[in-house]
């Protein structure tokens, strides 16, 4: 936009025809460039506008509507939020959701970082790196839900895990907490989402100049010092991207919690799905808006630690 005043001043200086025309050409070029970039970005703007921004606005609008047992009606009332913030269950459930997200984050980060580190620094040949990396993605060829449900026969009272432990004589009673428990939920989350940590961390690690590691070693740094002073700071953007993936996925999930806890635990997603089943769309929308705000705040905080744009 800053080019427009220049063009105006150019028009006001007829006594410098050459300079003016040159400037005019420059301005036109800049304007064309600007138009082109607007045109280029417009498909994305349209798609995001129609399929992302508009639905979210709709959810925000509906969250202020009222509902009867069968229908919803347009209104502007705060009843849904009032009930949401007035209920102790809401706080419990949000807390539980954060706990799930935090535990899952710790485990996926530890496992994901280790796997990525192994792939990037221990595997020497590029072929093997790619082969092993593809191996990590194989489970993703099946559906999320199938990978989750396959834990059920494994962890059950008469499942493989319990019978194996019983046969080895490690336990004399089947472990009840293996299935339909918070343990099972976190296990499934970690299993489902670790790859989302591996991929971005591996990606940033591959960009680390190996000579930096060598330089650190030559300067007398120990293995741990290289890790904490060179690799971790340089892999930060990947860690942060992976963390954003995992945290948002866990915060928004409801089906894993329902299946793996045997419906005995609740997270925010289940609150929303219960409301929808009972046709209470405005109340579901209000919960969704609060959840969205929470997740956005968390991501904003996470982005404070690392400037992804600068480091990529």
């Amino acid at each position, binding site marked *: 936009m800053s080019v427009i005043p220049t063009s105006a001043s150019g028009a006001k200086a007829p006594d410098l025809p050459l300079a003016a025309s040159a400037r005019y050409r420059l301005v036109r070029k800049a304007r064309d460039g600007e138009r082109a970039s607007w045109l280029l970005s417009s498909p994305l703007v349209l798609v995001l506008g129609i399929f992302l921004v508009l639905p979210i606005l709709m959810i925000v609008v509906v969250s202020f509507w009222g509902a009867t047992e*069968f229908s919803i009606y347009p209104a502007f009332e705060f009843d849904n939020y009032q009930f949401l913030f007035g209920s102790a269950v809401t706080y419990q459930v949000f807390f*539980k959701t954060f706990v799930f997200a935090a535990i899952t984050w710790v485990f996926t980060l530890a496992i994901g970082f280790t796997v990525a580190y192994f792939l990037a620094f221990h595997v020497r040949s590029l072929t093997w790196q790619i082969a092993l990396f593809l191996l990590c993605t194989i489970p993703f060829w099946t559906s999320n839900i199938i990978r989750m449900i396959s834990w059920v026969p494994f962890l059950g009272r008469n499942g493989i895990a319990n019978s194996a432990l019983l046969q080895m004589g490690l336990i004399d009673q089947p472990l009840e907490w293996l299935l339909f428990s918070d343990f099972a939920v976190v296990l499934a989350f970690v299993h489902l989402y670790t790859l989302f940590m591996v991929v971005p961390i591996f990606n940033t690690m591959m960009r680390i100049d190996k000579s930096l590691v060598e330089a650190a070693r030559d300067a007398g740094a120990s293995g741990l010092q290289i890790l904490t002073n060179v690799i971790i700071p340089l892999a930060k953007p990947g860690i942060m991207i992976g963390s954003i993936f995992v945290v948002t996925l866990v915060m928004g999930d409801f089906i894993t919690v329902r299946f793996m*806890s045997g419906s005995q635990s*609740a997270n925010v997603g289940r609150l929303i799905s219960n409301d929808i089943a*009972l046709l209470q769309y405005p109340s579901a929308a209000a919960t969704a808006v609060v959840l969205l705000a929470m997740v956005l705040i968390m991501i904003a905080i996470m982005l404070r630690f690392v400037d992804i744009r600068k480091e990529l």
Partner: protein
Amino acid sequence: MTISKENKGLSRRSVLRGAAAAVGAAAGSGVITGFPTIWAQNIKNVTLRQFGTGVSNLNDVATKVKEDLGFTLEMTALDSDSVTQRAATQPKSFDIADIEYWICKKVWPTGNLQAMDTSKIKYFDQISPIFTTGKLTPESVVAQGTAPSTVGFVDGADGTKFADEVTRWMTLIPTIYNADTLGIRPDLIGRPIESWAELLNPEFKGKASILDISSIGIMDMAMVCEAMGAIQYGDKGNMTREEIDKTIGIFTEAKKAGQFRAFWKSFDESVNLMASGEVVIQSMWSPAITAVKSKGIPCVYQPLKEGYRSWGGGLGLSKNLSGIELDAAYEYINWYLSGWVGGYLMRQGYYSAVPETSKEFMSENEWGYWYEGKPATAEIVSPTGDVLGKAGDVRDGGSYDERMGKVACWNAVMDENQYMVRKWNEFIAA
């Protein structure tokens, strides 16, 4: 009624279908009467749109209707929440509503359904008294909850109030009903189970389950609390806030003590929990028991001394039906009660509204097993070909009179429904 204009000119058949829909629309709206009489004479061009829950929306029924009556029946299966919503808010989207009685209680006041003239219903006199007087035998007491007899009749053709006694105007024609109880694994329990209270018996800690569908789950809870002697209910089907709090309180305590292995929401989940031995006692539906048994795993639909929690559904007519389509609807209902459907349903373990007519469509062995509670003389096979029992087996709970005579409570919708739902969510989150 919607007339799809895109169909026009595509083929002769689609034009005809469009025309038939147009006739329906015209007849339904009541604006143009008797305009396209050529088609109006021909019942074969009538299409009735029925929607309801999966239980009784059987494609075999639609096929048989086409065969016996000539007109087309379009079936849409939905879950019970969507059924309620559709019946209440989209009266023009259906001709026949296949809904449960408690849904009828919610939906009737909206005026979207029209009462049926019982004088046009051929088998009205033979309908089981459960649906008319509410008393199976003259000595019976009408059960708690939304008993079908309490919402089965209205005071006039345009009546909006439910009548206390049998009138000429019926709201729903009963189609399918059954008595529910707890399912158990006799091999893993190893002793007789006689009371609903056993669900919370610490003996089954970590091996019990209840269904996570609030409207039905709360009733099962109430049966348990009453059996334990912990709460005396005025009406289990219409609890006060205090009763809801107490009931949920008892179960929350049990949940925190680890009584429950899991809660189930879908039919398959209940089957898996039981078949895998994760759970040995739980609320269950009759076909789920059959599914467990068909895997060769012992499972009993245990009759309990406090009685059954029962449910029933029926067909209701949209207020938009009139003329030829209304006639077709009455014809359909009379056909429905004439026995073929009844036999089909009873061979699955449900009951039909007019049991006598079904008898002709069942073998003596089937009738004896399903209705009279006699030992089977040969293999019992479902209409879809699954073996449900072998010779010598007796139905859990016995005969029709023994089972339906012991109904303690019907599925219901409470005045405090929204409060109950919130409390239920708290229970799940606790």
